[in-house]
């Protein structure tokens, strides 16, 4: 929908304002990295995992989900705690009182642990265009 509006606006611009669009003129090179909620066979493999009941430890597909996430070996992996599951996404569901707080991580911690275990492969995810060099000590 958004692209349709942009293209329609661009098509109407010459008639409306006298501005012409030069689609072949390169102003710069796009260096963004696409991120999807599934794997994507591009230069940088990126993935986003979103909290939902199927990634809980009690889920019958939990083990397969996180094994697949590890096997994917994504260049960038993102974990998103979104709002429809407040007990998972929010660690303090009520404001503090004078003598107590509601901090509770019991639903959030297992998901973070499993995500980090599946994505923290030492140095395996690190991709740089040039070799890294350590700074001189002196």
């Amino acid at each position: 929908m958004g692209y349709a509006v942009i293209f329609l606006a661009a098509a109407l611009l010459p008639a409306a304002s006298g501005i012409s669009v030069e689609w072949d003129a390169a102003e710069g090179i796009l260096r963004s990295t696409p991120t999807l909620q599934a794997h994507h066979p591009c230069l940088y493999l990126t993935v986003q995992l979103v909290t939902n009941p199927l990634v809980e430890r009690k889920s019958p597909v939990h083990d397969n989900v996180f094994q697949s996430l590890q096997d994917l070996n994504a260049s960038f992996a993102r974990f998103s705690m979104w709002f429809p599951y407040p007990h998972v996404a929010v660690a303090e569901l009520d404001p503090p009182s004078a003598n107590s707080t509601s901090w509770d991580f019991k639903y959030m911690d297992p998901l973070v642990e499993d995500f980090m275990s599946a994505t923290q492969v030492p140095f395996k995810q690190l991709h740089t265009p040039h070799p890294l060099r350590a700074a001189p000590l002196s």
Partner: protein
Amino acid sequence: MNFATPPTWMFNTTSWSYPTDPDDVTPPPPPSCKQVDWGYEQGVNPKSLTDLGDYFGRLAAHYMAGGFVDENGVFQSSPYHYNFTHW
């Protein structure tokens, strides 16, 4: 890491309801799930950006620094010292 949901009580709303029982039984499958609440986010502006920042600071400390000092001065420890390279 994208902890995308701030507490609703930190916003300009008098209601910050959430499911009382996180384990839902309806619909039946999957066998256990967190009760969905599409209306959790309410309010527009945070009451205090400082409090909001403190919340995420404590959340970060829980996972990256082995714990945090809560609003009442109590240290709440955690076993985590993760290195979140991007927040």
